[in-house]
């Protein structure tokens, strides 16, 4: 499929034919025993994003003891970030689920940086279907786990028989479709943006490639990227908080 590196095509523009490729380029590979580990562009950018997030977290932790009551500079930024994510989770999931802030906050930051990495010439990791699918499956299993533990197995199973017993098929299919709709929404938006930018750069002559692409980047990378990171996190939070029993 798309992730296997067959995302190639050829375009003919102004009489000349160019081969363009949107696939995940294989940078290097190594063998351990009989297993072949392939390092692609997506894997490289994923590790770079992880490194950025981890280094940021370590820097914040190291400077934490220097933080004062009156914030300034770097401390202002960190407090704004933490408070923003905390109130985002609190207002979407309700005050009693604030303990989910660390997970959904880091989920949001990871998807945000992944989507924005296209701006730095990297291939967005979210344009590889395995990343959105993996993140959506975490949400799916969280939904099932918290549904079972907070309601009990009996009550949880009864939820599938609403409003009548024959609806169990529809309910099960609807539940399984959730991670796919969640992941395809993110994947389609990002891979669409990547392909449009690739086509623009591959097809048009050099004098149209100065300045003009910045508007396309502003829409496809920044606007769509931030919006999809927001939507993915928000829908995950709604699914998880909906799984809990009512109080």
């Amino acid at each position, binding site marked *: *499929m798309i992730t296997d590196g*067959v*995302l190639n*095509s050829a375009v003919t523009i102004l009489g000349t034919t160019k081969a363009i490729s949107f696939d995940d380029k294989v940078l290097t590979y190594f063998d351990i025993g009989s297993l072949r580990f392939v390092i692609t562009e997506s894997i490289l950018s994923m590790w770079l994003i992880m490194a950025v997030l981890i280094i940021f977290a370590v820097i914040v932790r190291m400077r934490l003891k220097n933080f004062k009551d009156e914030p300034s500079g770097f401390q202002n930024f960190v407090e704004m970030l933490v408070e923003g994510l905390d109130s985002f989770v609190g207002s979407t999931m309700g005050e009693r689920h604030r303990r989910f802030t660390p997970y959904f906050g880091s989920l949001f930051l990871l998807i945000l940086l992944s989507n924005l990495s296209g701006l730095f010439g990297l291939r967005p990791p979210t344009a590889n279907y395995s990343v959105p699918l993996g993140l959506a499956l975490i949400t799916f299993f969280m939904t099932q786990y918290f549904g079972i533990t907070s309601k009990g197995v009996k009550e949880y199973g009864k939820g599938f028989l609403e409003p009548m017993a024959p609806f169990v098929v529809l309910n099960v299919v609807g539940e399984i479709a959730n991670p796919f709709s969640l992941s*395809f929404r993110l994947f389609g938006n990002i891979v*669409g943006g990547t392909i449009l930018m690739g086509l623009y750069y591959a097809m048009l002559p050099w004098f149209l490639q100065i300045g003009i692409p910045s508007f396309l980047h502003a829409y496809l990378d920044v606007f769509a990227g931030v919006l999809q990171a927001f939507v993915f996190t928000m829908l995950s939070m709604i699914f998880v908080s909906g799984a809990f029993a009512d109080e």
Partner: protein
Amino acid sequence: MGNISNEGLILACSAIGAGLAMIAGIGPGIGQGFAAGKGAEAVGRQPGAKGDITSTMLLGAAVAETTGIYGFVVALILMFANPLLSAYRSLGQ
């Protein structure tokens, strides 16, 4: 018709299919327009709640976009990762 190869026919039909799949774009267009119209109405009635209205509207618009994205993914697969062509090639072996 005699001089069109089987693979050429599959490619041509896949291109038409990709075009047809993008008809799915009509639905989200109408839906998002509806969301934006209602959002504008709500801001007109309650200008103070502009921030809340905008974020709710963007969330709804992004969810309404999903079906269009499905059509887009189908079109992408048909154009760039053609499963029909590889199925035909594996038939020949």
